[in-house]
């Protein structure tokens, strides 16, 4: 599903060049679930954005689903991101002026899905995340957990093969965070590849694979052999 080879990412700053990622190799199989851990500044968020095609590497190659994507033009990258990748953010990032259905339908809008189909699919997804009765509520009328469920439903709108979550439980209390993680794992069990960036060891421990980052490099890559996400 994901093949990173010799990935480097550098940012030019006023006084120096920051090396956010250094020679990163990473393979993620389809249907796999993994956590990316590391302290602040370790490069885990840069890695996530690179996986989500929001960033392009300074060097190295990135293949997503067997297709080299590191050299694509911006609009083609957007098209792949829209179709292949779902994002879940720590702060949910729902559009305040839109209700839950419209928020969920947002990626489909950019994917040129017709209005009626958008609405039908969005309602289905809200039902799947247990928020059918909150479909017409705006973000301000929803709890944190409910907002994150809407965000997850939005991430699934175009049935992406890769789901990227950036600290998805970071803004939630423990019990709600646990429910959200369970929801994400459930999706993974359904076949969606899941990459979660977190600094929460407890959360990471519930995923079968942990990739630890330090100073822009993959420091460790641990797999738990006894569990299978497809099981």
């Amino acid at each position: 599903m994901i093949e990173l080879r010799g990935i480097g990412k550098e940012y030019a700053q006023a006084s120096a060049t920051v090396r956010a990622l250094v020679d990163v190799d990473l393979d993620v199989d389809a249907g796999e679930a993994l956590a990316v851990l590391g302290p602040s500044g370790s490069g885990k968020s840069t890695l996530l954005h690179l996986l989500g095609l929001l960033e392009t590497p300074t060097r190295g190659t990135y293949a997503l689903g067997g297709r080299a994507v590191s050299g694509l033009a911006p609009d083609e990258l957007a098209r792949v991101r829209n179709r292949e990748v779902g994002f879940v953010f720590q702060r949910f990032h729902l559009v305040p002026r839109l209700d839950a259905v419209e928020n969920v339908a947002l990626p489909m809008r950019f994917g040129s899905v017709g209005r009626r189909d958008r609405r039908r699919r969005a309602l289905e997804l809200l039902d799947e995340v247990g928020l059918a009765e909150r479909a017409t509520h705006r973000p301000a009328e929803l709890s944190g957990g409910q907002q994150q469920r809407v965000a997850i439903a939005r991430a699934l709108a175009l049935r992406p093969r890769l789901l990227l979550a950036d600290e998805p439980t970071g803004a939630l209390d423990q019990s709600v965070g646990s429910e959200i993680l369970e929801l994400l794992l459930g999706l993974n069990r359904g076949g969606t590849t899941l990459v979660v960036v977190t600094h929460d060891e407890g959360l990471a421990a519930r995923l079968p694979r942990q990739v630890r980052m330090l100073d822009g490099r993959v420091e460790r890559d641990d797999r738990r052999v006894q569990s299978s996400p497809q099981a």
Partner: protein
Amino acid sequence: MLSWILSGLWADRVRTGLVALGVLWGTLGLASLLAFGGEMLRATSGTARNFGVDLMRVAGAATTRPSRGFPAGRSIGLEAGDEKLLASLPSVRGAVLEHNLWGRTYRVGDARHTGTLVGTQPGFADLRSRRVRPGGRFLSERDEREERRVCYLGAFAARALFGSADPIGREVEVLGTPFRVVGVGPDEVQISNYNGDERNKVYIPASTYRALTGRRSPSFFVVGLVAPNAADAASAEILGALGARYGFDPADTAALEIQDYTEMQRMIGAILGGNRALTALVGLFGFLVAALGVANATWVRVEESRREIGLAVALGARRRHVMTPPIAEAALVALGGGAIGLGLAAVCFALAGMLDVPLEVRAYLGDPRVSLALGGGIVGLLAVAGAVSGWIPARRAARVDPMVVLREE
């Protein structure tokens, strides 16, 4: 996309409304200015033409130089028939004589009217733009040739003598003699006149005038020029021709009293031209202010929507998804505000058109209306200006880095 754009505008409806209100107000002012300016130009030009175009008036005066054995100070009295000499000059397109008798009283039964009596020739109608109400005519060659007792009435004279009845074919007592009315002038204002308002005058054939009054000398000649810039050449030609005939030095300009009305035309043209330039300038500034207002509001909206734009990019929005909304929003605000402003202007002018405005006011202001072509043009230009105003904010939107804004909390 449209619903996305509209929902964005609705979410920011207070600012959108205020900007649209600004555009509305600007458009209302601009449309009013253009409608007034255009109509004022048309009406005033028309009113100026009511006097006649490219005219001079020529009368005899007194010499200031001795010539051909005559001393200085000799009176020059022009005679009937001189109009033919004047009409033959290269810079002159036509000439007629005019006898004027001030303060004559005309009677129809008990009705009385006092005004100048004019004895003139048929060519006067063309030179002095004397139009005729339907059913009538001006004085003809036959009237002149046969010294007929026929008259053409100014509008005020006709109203005073006949009220609302049709005067054509009826009789009016002029110089103690019954005259048949053959034509009546329309009620129209003139920018200039001599010997009183044209609407108070009564016109009869010059030959009839001379027969009844015994006065042979014309008061003056009305001379039409071939072009507005022919006044100097015409003056020289007139002085030369009449100087040769009456024995005065053509360089003695005081021998004739030549009134040049092209000067007045030039002055009116300059005033109207200035008015048009000012209208265009104010309109242009109004347009720029409206466009800047829209651009500014769109810029602020883009700045405030950076997180939303970043999110859209993260969710797969392409460049056109990001750039179209600011451009379309700006165009829609300009279009909406402009269309409402024009609608209001149209309604205001329609209501104003129902008022009973005096003819003297309408003669210069006309009947301003917001034309469909003008309105469509303004709305179209506003939409384009709005879209252009949204272009720079849109480019800024396209440069939003989703990584940065999604990390900002």
